[in-house]
């Protein structure tokens, strides 16, 4: 992974020193909240319902064991013993004191982590495929490109006050595991005539006006990436609306101006900018790339793995759901579920973080990843280590075999923590997971993505859930709307609202009717919920959700 240079370390130390002084001036009263707020937001500090919240970036979701241990230390020393991994490959601490945050940032800097640009109208943490560098379907590891973008966008003087926040995701495989079409810019590594380059998507976003990104450049030569991205962001910076917060994202700029006009303006700007980079960006990329070289994989015997797979049904179940194909046949990609039934999606205790760090160090070449689906990945595990790894995870409450299943729910913090939320998300996720665990149906149901947001801003990605749940405040009561048919992969689609919302008491039974009813609608066990929905359309699913409407019509 990327190692900080002296320049990086000095930059971060200086930023942390500045913020410490800003916090001191806020506490002694020389700065008002209005003056301090933009400063704290630049450093990832929010004020939420019950406390401050510190959002720490995990660039493109990659961590080593030392970094994970430091995240555990922060949780235990300055928070309430846990952290919350988010859909943006960040970790959030829900209970820090303002006066402790400078020390937390210094502790993060010791392991090359920071909270810069995790808030505010800037280019945010660059996200990526959580299987990067390991997946069998990969064209190229997207992380060097993501790191280049991180360096370019961090403290970029032109882009500190954009019309609105700006999110970039990078993938290097045809299967999109990073939801690139829901990002302001999606960068996809491709090949054309034997040349590596990028397909650039622009104008995606969820929130109150969900839109999928559109291809603004079908093939961009690799060397042109930064000037081209700079061209897009500077066109947006000028054209993006600052009069209305809800129309300020680039998706609206693209929608209002049209893709053709945006493309022309970007190309014009790109022609000007291209020469200014003068190749220094490519020199930097060349220096970054070797740092992401694959580990020195050892040969693994698979006999012990196969024996355990045959003899131990709980291990087999975990392997069947939580293991993905590695590019080496004798290795595996392990997804550690942070979705134990009834627990808070994405939360890990300090002790759990430390166990995952130890296991990564011992068995997985010291690498961990955080997924946008709020799970932890060990990207490179020799297959002979899997039985031992599974036992260690299980002992720490981390052995849940549910990746990609009904209880592997994305949920934003919702009104349990978030000042913007209109309803709670976490208890709904907990109840759905608990209910389907009782029914013992989730393996039979198979691949199903439920995503829950506690407000229209859609941090819980409900629009791209096969089943999306949106929590709203309807006349002072929590109310939950269901969307159907969303998809966050390379076949992306925005879900469609099913009908009237459900109360907090009605939502879990409604989801149960929908999912259990799907079992009767599908052609066979191989037809997923989404496939059945696409084949049959919304009507039979609406009939499951609203049986009383059907009775009335009859």
């Amino acid at each position: 992974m990327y190692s900080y240079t002296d320049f990086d370390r000095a930059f971060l130390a200086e930023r942390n020193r500045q913020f410490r002084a800003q916090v001191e001036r806020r506490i002694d009263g020389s700065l008002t909240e209005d003056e301090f707020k933009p400063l704290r937001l630049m450093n990832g500090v929010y004020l939420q319902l019950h406390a401050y919240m510190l959002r720490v970036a995990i660039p493109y979701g990659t961590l080593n064991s030392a970094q994970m241990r430091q995240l555990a230390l922060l949780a235990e020393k300055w928070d309430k013993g846990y952290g919350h991994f988010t859909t943006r490959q960040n970790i959030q601490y829900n209970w820090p004191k303002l006066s402790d945050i400078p020390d937390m940032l210094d502790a993060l800097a010791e392991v090359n982590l920071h909270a810069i640009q995790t808030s505010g109208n800037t280019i945010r943490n660059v996200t990526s495929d959580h299987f990067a560098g390991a997946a069998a379907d990969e064209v190229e590891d997207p992380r060097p490109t993501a790191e280049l973008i991180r360096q370019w966008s961090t403290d970029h003087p032109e882009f500190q006050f954009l019309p609105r926040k700006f999110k970039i995701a990078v993938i290097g495989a045809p299967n999109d595991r990073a939801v690139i079409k829901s990002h302001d810019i999606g960068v996809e590594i491709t090949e054309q005539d034997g040349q590596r380059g990028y397909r650039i998507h622009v104008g995606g976003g969820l929130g109150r006006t969900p839109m999928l990104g559109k291809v603004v450049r079908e093939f961009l030569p690799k060397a042109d990436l930064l000037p081209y991205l700079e061209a897009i962001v500077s066109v947006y910076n000028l054209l993006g609306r600052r009069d209305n917060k809800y129309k300020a994202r680039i998706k609206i700029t693209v929608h209002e101006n049209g893709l053709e006009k945006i493309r022309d303006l970007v190309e014009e700007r790109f022609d000007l900018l291209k020469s200014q980079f003068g190749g220094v960006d490519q020199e930097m990329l060349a220096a970054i790339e070797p740092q992401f070289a694959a580990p020195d994989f050892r040969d693994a015997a698979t006999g012990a793995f196969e024996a355990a797979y045959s003899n131990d049904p709980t291990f087999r179940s975990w392997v069947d759901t939580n293991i993905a194909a590695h590019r080496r046949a004798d290795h595996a990609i392990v997804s550690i579920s942070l979705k134990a039934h009834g627990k808070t999606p994405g939360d890990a205790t300090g002790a759990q973080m430390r166990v995952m760090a130890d296991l990564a160090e011992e068995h997985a070449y010291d690498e961990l990843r955080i997924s946008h689906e709020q799970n932890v990945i060990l990207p490179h595990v020799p297959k002979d280590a899997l039985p031992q790894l599974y036992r260690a995870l299980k002992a720490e409450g981390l052995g849940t075999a549910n990746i990609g299943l009904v209880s592997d729910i994305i949920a934003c913090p919702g009104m349990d923590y978030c000042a913007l939320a209109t309803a709670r998300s976490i208890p709904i996720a907990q109840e759905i997971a608990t209910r389907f665990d009782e029914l013992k149906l989730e393996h039979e149901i198979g691949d199903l993505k439920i995503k829950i947001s506690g407000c229209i801003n859609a941090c819980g990605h409900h629009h791209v859930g096969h089943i999306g749940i949106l929590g709203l405040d309807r006349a002072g009561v929590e109310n939950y709307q269901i969307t159907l048919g969303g998809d966050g992969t390379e076949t992306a689609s925005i879900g469609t609202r099913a009908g009237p919302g459900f109360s907090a008491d009605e939502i879990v039974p409604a989801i149960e009717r929908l999912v259990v009813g799907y079992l009767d609608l599908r052609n066979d066990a191989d037809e997923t919920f989404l496939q059945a929905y696409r084949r049959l359309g919304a009507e039979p699913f609406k009939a499951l959700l609203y049986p009383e409407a059907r009775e009335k019509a009859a």
Partner: protein
Amino acid sequence: MPRPFTPKVITANALIEGDVVYLTEDDRWSRALKEAEVITDEAHAEVRLLDASSRHAEAVGVYLADVAVKDGTPEPTHFREEFRRTGPSNYFHGKQAEG
């Protein structure tokens, strides 16, 4: 006709801890809603809000929140305020754990 003024309390988050506080009649910031001054007069509310908002080295995000007075003590009328005075529902953290 203007809408009748409903009872309110002044609430905010404490500067250092960030937790929920309520303004008392004797100008303290209390952690407990039951100690809050219940304001029933609109003009008085405006003055109290202005004064409280100027105490920017103590509290952040000062605003008026609706309450209903039951047996002489203020109770939240909206679930958001109920969570603010209690804490999150997924862990026994926050106000509910502080007694």
